[in-house]
């Protein structure tokens, strides 16, 4: 059995030796030209003139293109795959993110105004500097909390408001009743900070138009190559059979690489205009500014408890920033992933939430690892933590008291989502042992007595992973079918190529998908290879995001392998003169149960192609494709706990310990899974303690344009993790696997915030917005000291 084994990642040899092939590494026989862009330095401005004459005459320049050229070419827009859907019935106030400014208005810093294509990137940048743009700067709206206030500048005046959508969810009557009979009510402002994924590989695109064959090729840093191909049918209006999209090695995506960014069609447009391949590789500054940002919810919440600490009800109001335009998947957060998971791991009778999407003069917001759920867990868990403290109860015990009991599962939350499997009390029990919780509280008492501010943070939650099924996701607003696909091609020699519609950009599918296939086919893992990321080679797939690949594409691998085996067994049975049901497969052989009669897998596969002696009606060949639509989402659950030390003199937080007990169902490769938790936690730690896409509130200037100001965690900021699993299988797929990709980013921000507040609660601090930087913590301590 390969499934369940910590097999070394088969892709790591090339990555660790620096020999992966990323978009920027792709070489062609023709010389490659380079694109560079003139971008708006203003958050909001009217363009009065663009002068490109000087740039056109610069050395090496092939073309200079602007929005006027785009309009002349008759191209289209980036249409949402998860478009806004106003649940209160108002028409959607959609403005798609433009590729290049076409209406002489720029609405966020970094918006593209002109493109230069030149022989090399330095020449292209020189020419960009020679382009003169006259801007009339306008007042900007960059503070989410104030987006709907009177007098706030409108991003799109045609709507008369900055509101994009409004939605309500939950059972308001139960909430009303819960608050009425509450013994204690906790109220908090619980905003989540604007962050960005910042993967190690910046976004990069290369476009090529082959005039002779009238075929287009795009190399892209994408998580879902077929979706990219579909975007191009709307943007450059290229027919799907004419376009090949290749996503080679991709160095991290985290959701952020799912979208039709401006530079993607522009690179191909440049190639069409110049009849040369055109490439753009983002600089870190361009990416920190132009990659979709994430989170940025302004939320106020209230929680009602009875006298024993049982949660009766909670209610929230959220302003969810969209940024200046609607990015293609943004509504998957507001309309699907945020509100749905509000019950977390707790049995809460009443939940109500009001969400308003708002436009601001900032970079568009879209899904990033966790998409909506980090916000959810943070807003609920902060209330639980403060509620427990205000009531003088142990926060761990209060959570255990509210945890959904296993006998209540399947459990339908007040929001209406049904958790199909899990055992939250067991997760808490395991955490208590793993973290030595009681000893930690003893230690805390001692350290506080010595003036050392140690804190313990806790959170528990359910995740909604594995998007599909198609119907359910359609109902939640997806215009794409959330299935996935795999083809299993068995070659005559018995070697196998698996083609999958998922795309690995760090998740190690070449290891885990082949682990699954090897078990299913009963052959050695070395005899199987995986192909992903090429629309000319792989059937139409939906890609990798939302912790979905295993429970969709992975299950398609299972289904396609099962079909291969079913057919191969018919042939093997014919060759061995037995019934297919008499056969078992083991170590590359078909064996007649209870006998020593057997035949090698490779002999059967050879016969599948080359032998005329086959059962009547059995088709030649051995290759199967399965499109897999799961029966439900999956609902992984977890409990996280951390120990922090806050230095009250400087406000600096040291994260001493981090523990996670996860239930992700069947684990295919524990090492890969742990890696997912480590990486996710690191990103969640960044969100909690340091990451922030900051705008100057008055000028709208973007302040986090380089890694000198945008802080991501260093390895030295991250402790060793203590990780355990508790497995309950989901009934929604044959392996019982849930999703393990997002637990870290979902849990860590809330967990760490609770830890920091726990560390300095005794000094009077009740809440600090994230990121909890030393500066903010120090100021919070000063305010508490001054009794403010």
């Amino acid at each position, binding site marked *: 059995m390969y499934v369940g084994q910590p097999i070394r990642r088969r892709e790591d040899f090339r990555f660790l030796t620096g020999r992966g092939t990323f978009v920027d590494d792709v070489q062609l026989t023709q010389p490659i030209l380079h694109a560079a862009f003139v971008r708006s330095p203003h958050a909001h401005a009217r363009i009065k003139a663009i002068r490109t004459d000087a740039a056109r005459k610069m050395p090496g320049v092939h073309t200079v293109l602007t929005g006027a050229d785009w309009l002349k070419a008759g191209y289209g827009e980036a249409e949402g795959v998860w478009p806004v859907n106003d649940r209160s019935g108002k028409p959607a106030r959609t403005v798609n993110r433009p590729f290049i400014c076409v209406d002489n208005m720029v609405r966020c810093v970094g918006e593209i105004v002109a493109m230069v294509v030149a022989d090399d990137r*330095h020449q292209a*940048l020189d020419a960009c500097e020679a382009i003169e743009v006259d801007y009339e700067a306008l007042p900007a709206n960059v503070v989410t909390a104030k987006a709907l206030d009177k007098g706030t500048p409108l991003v799109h005046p045609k709507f008369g408001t900055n509101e994009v959508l409004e939605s309500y969810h939950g059972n308001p009557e139960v909430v009303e009743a819960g608050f009425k009979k509450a013994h204690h009510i906790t109220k908090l402002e619980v905003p989540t900070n604007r962050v960005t994924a910042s993967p190690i590989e910046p976004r990069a695109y290369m476009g090529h138009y082959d005039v002779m064959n009238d075929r287009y090729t795009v190399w892209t840093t994408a998580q879902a190559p077929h979706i990219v191909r579909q975007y191009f049918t709307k943007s450059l209006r290229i027919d799907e059979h004419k376009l090949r999209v290749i996503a080679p090695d991709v160095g991290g995506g985290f959701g952020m690489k799912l979208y039709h960014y401006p530079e993607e069609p522009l690179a191909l447009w440049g190639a069409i205009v110049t009849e040369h391949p055109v490439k753009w590789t983002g*600089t870190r500054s361009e990416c920190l500014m132009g990659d979709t940002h994430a989170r940025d919810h302004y939320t106020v919440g209230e929680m009602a408890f009875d006298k024993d600490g049982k949660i009766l009800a909670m209610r929230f109001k959220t302003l969810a920033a969209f940024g200046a335009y609607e990015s293609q998947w943004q509504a998957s957060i507001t309309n699907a992933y945020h509100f749905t998971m509000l019950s977390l791991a707790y049995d809460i009778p009443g939940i109500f939430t009001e969400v308003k999407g708002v436009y601001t003069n900032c970079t568009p917001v879209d899904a990033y690892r966790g998409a909506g759920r980090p916000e959810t867990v943070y807003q609920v868990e902060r209330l639980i933590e403060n509620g427990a403290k205000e009531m003088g109860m142990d926060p761990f015990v209060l959570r255990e008291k509210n945890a959904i009991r296993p006998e209540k599962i399947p459990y339908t939350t007040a929001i209406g989502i049904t958790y199909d499997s899990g055992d939250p009390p067991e997760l808490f029990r395991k955490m208590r042992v793993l973290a030595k919780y009681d000893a930690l509280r003893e230690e805390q008492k001692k350290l506080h007595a010595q003036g050392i501010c140690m804190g313990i943070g806790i959170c528990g939650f359910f995740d909604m992973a594995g998007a599909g099924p198609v119907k359910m996701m359609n109902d939640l607003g997806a215009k794409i079918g959330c299935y996935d696909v795999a083809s299993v091609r068995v070659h005559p020699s018995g070697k196998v190529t698996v083609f999958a519609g998922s795309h690995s950009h760090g998740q190690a599918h070449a290891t885990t998908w082949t682990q699954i296939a090897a078990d299913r086919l009963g052959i050695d893992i070395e005899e199987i290879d995986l192909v992903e990321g090429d629309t000319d080679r792989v059937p139409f797939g939906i890609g990798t995001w939302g912790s979905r690949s295993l429970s969709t594409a992975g299950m398609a691998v299972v289904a396609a392998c099962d079909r291969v085996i079913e057919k191969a067994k018919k042939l093997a049975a014919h060759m061995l003169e037995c019934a297919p049901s008499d056969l078992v497969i083991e170590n590359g052989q078909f064996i007649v149960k209870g006998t020593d009669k057997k035949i090698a897998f490779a002999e059967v596969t050879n016969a599948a192609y080359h032998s005329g002696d086959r059962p009547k009606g059995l088709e030649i060949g051995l290759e199967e494709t399965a499109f897999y639509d799961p029966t439900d989402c999956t609902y992984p659950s977890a409990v996280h706990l951390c120990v922090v030390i806050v230095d009250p003199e400087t406000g600096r937080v040291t994260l001493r310990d981090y523990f996670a007990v996860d239930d992700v169902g069947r684990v295919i490769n524990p090492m890969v899974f742990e890696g997912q938790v480590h990486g996710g936690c690191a990103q969640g730690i960044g969100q909690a303690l340091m990451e922030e896409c900051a705008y100057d509130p008055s000028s709208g200037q973007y302040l986090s344009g380089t890694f000198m100001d945008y802080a991501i965690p260093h390895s030295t900021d991250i402790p060793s993790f203590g990780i355990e699993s508790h497995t309950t299988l989901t009934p929604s797929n044959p392996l019982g696997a849930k999703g393990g990709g997002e637990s870290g980013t979902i849990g860590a921000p809330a967990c760490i915030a609770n830890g920091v507040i726990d560390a300095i609660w005794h000094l009077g601090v009740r809440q600090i917005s994230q990121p909890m*930087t030393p*500066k903010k913590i*120090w100021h919070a301590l000063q305010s508490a000291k001054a009794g403010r």
Partner: protein
Amino acid sequence: MYAFNYHRPSSIAEAVKLLKASSDGRCLAGGMSLIPTMKHRLASAADLIDLNGIRELAFIRREGDALVIGALARHVEIADSADVKKSIPALAALAASVGDPQVRNRGTFCGSLCFADPAADCPAGLVGLNGTVITDKRRIAADKFFNGLYETTLEKGEIVTGVSFPIPEKAGWAKFANLASRFAIAAVMVAKTGGGVRVAVTGAKASVFRVPEMEAALAKNFSAAALDGIKISPDGMNNDLHGDPDYRAHLVSVMAKRAVQAATA
């Protein structure tokens, strides 16, 4: 980057000649400040004169009562040097606190002085330890070297060849690093020397500065407690994402105490 001509001289004399001959020439040492600035197109040079081929600049040695560090001594070499650790451990601690391993492997102490970044550590090392900058033609005292934000008193075409430090009785380094860049939000070098006590602060203002009240208090009583009650004014302190003037002023006090503690530990 803008286009430039690249030169790699092998002697100081040749480097000086190249620099003088250029309309807009710049030295390249570790490149850890200059190259990123050029990549951002915030700096340009007609000629880049790479000092890395001048082997005579790559040294760290004791010269009688002084510790002398050549212009090509990397942060990592200073951090690891037995001579530095023995004679001025606080300087080794400073070098070890610069950036990350990649930066320390290439960046030089003298390059940092020449760049005069307000958040850089090395200027506080120079001023706090009362070092002397040695150039191809003169010696410049620490207190005369910096001239505000990104400005020094180096003349056009002047090359720094090294820096010399008297060996202090005691010295201590404490740094509060920016979580993003790992540069100093506020960092303090405290030294007790034959010539008195020096307290040099970096990261907090446009340029490195000394704190006379602290120096006077420590001269009487070289202990962290001596600094209690000395208020640092937030006036003129930097204000950015990572720290406002009040916070920085407070950090200067905290770091100064910790530097004294490090010096007396």
